[in-house]
């Protein structure tokens, strides 16, 4: 059975079809690349999965359970760990505190009970392990303003991991990083996946996507235009056309 099942999702913003009848799935232990040119609907798809955007049509299921009507925080607690495109750390907290807040999910599930839960050391210790996992434990006590973007991107992944999600949803984690940083980060994601973490990766860096993803789904103008292994998908003319345009393709040929 798939971990995540997306069935015939359609989203309209006014007259614009952001997604049209898109069906895709994520298998357990898989790292799936969701790619496509700007405006293809990738981020909208991620928002439909997390519940930020409501689909006009279709279903999202996590291990057979329908998520459509559930609010964002419930979906997250059911196993969606999400790192957003633009980094959004809590700026008044250190990186370790950022991650510890997620690691202490059991303390925060019932708001009234959280008033009587004081002990934070365990979550802070755990947060260091997550930061170590993405290679930035040296900055655990730094505030977000004092560390480079690459660190914040990794902190976001550590924070998403700290809720022990069944799947990670990553929206352009490599954007804004130089090639060396991107390669290091992609290696970390690959290693996480090797340890069994299912990942849905939205990414523009096709070299890294090709390197680490086991399967790709390509969107263009809100429609799914291809699906399969990176080698076959990236060779398809419809995919190349979507990325570099019909005219350029003709010129190249």
């Amino acid at each position, binding site marked *: 059975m798939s971990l995540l099942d997306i069935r015939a999702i359609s989203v309209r913003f006014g007259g614009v079809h952001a997604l049209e009848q898109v069906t895709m799935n994520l298998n357990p232990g898989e790292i799936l690349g969701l790619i496509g040119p700007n405006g293809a609907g990738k981020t909208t798809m991620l928002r439909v999965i*997390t519940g930020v955007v409501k689909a006009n049509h279709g279903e999202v299921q996590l291990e057979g359970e329908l998520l459509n009507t559930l609010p*964002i*925080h*419930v979906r*997250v*607690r059911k196993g969606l760990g*999400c790192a*957003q495109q633009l980094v*959004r750390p*809590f*700026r*008044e*907290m250190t990186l370790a505190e950022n991650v510890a*807040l*997620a690691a*202490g*999910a059991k*303390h*925060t*599930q019932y*708001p*009234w009970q*959280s*008033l*009587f*839960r*004081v002990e*934070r050391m365990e979550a802070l210790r755990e947060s260091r392990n997550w930061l170590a996992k993405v290679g930035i434990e040296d900055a655990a006590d730094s505030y977000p303003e004092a560390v480079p973007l690459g660190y914040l991107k990794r902190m976001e992944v550590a*924070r998403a991991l700290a*809720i022990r999600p069944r799947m990670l949803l990553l929206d352009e984690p490599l954007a804004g990083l130089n090639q060396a940083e991107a390669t290091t980060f992609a290696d970390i994601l690959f290693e996480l996946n090797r340890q069994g973490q299912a990942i849905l990766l939205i990414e523009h860096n096709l070299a890294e996507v090709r390197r680490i993803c086991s399967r790709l789904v390509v969107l263009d103008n809100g429609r799914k235009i291809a699906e399969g292994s990176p080698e076959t998908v990236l060779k398809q003319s419809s995919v190349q056309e979507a990325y570099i345009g019909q005219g350029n393709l003709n010129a190249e040929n």
Partner: protein
Amino acid sequence: MGYEISLLTAMLISIIGSLSLNLITGFCGQVSLGHVAFVGIGAYTASLLTKATTPFFAALVAGMLLAGIFGVFVGLASLRVRHDFLAITTMGVNFVFLGVVRQQDWLGGELGVSSIPDPGLGKLGFLALVFGCVVLVVLLSMQIRRSWMGYVFEAISGDEDTARMLGLDVSRYKLIAFALGTSLAGLAGGLYAHHVRFIYPDSFAFVESITILAMVVVGGNGSIWGVMLASALLSLLPQWFQFIDDYKLLLYGGLLFAVMRFSPGGLAGFAQRWFPQSQKSFTLEVDK
């Protein structure tokens, strides 16, 4: 001596009022420009009940409950609107409250409620009661701060969308902040009504909401001790120096401007800048 006791009692009540707003605005980041409406709900409820021969403490609790219930309704608005829109919404709450009490004869209309019964504790006894309430409110604030609830409030105050993405039930936490803050405002109102023994709509005018907000902002949004210090100063100064009372609006307006321009962290932020070392341990041990 009687005057000093009365002054001290009034000061302690204003500390409860500003700490109650500090829970909503300082801890949870939800701006409220109409907080005195909840002080008013507590004051009217408690005083009308004691006038109807309800025991004082029962009336006080009823005032807290009713203020808290209305607070949750306003909190529901905070789930829909944010930032400056929330500020304007809560400002509207203050005017709605005033509009209602001015027009309702059973609430005393423009004349308000007078001859509020003496709780029968004596001046010193009443001061002790109010002091006890301050201690409880401070302890509650400290407990929230050091607990996971305070941790979540801090996150919501920073970025509520991200807080949701970490699986936090932001809506419910915000409603709790409103419920706690507004019921404590109701407590301040009940105490105030039985301290001055006469209330009328202008006691809860918009400028009073700004006064409470000024105490929170000048003290340092979210800092328990800073807010207490600012409320003590801002409530005592106009009483001690008549000329300050005459220029109260000017003083509060000027202070708000000066704090925002020169020390957005208020007195607490100011202290942190001048005594970084001492403030750090203070923040860790006391505020966290």
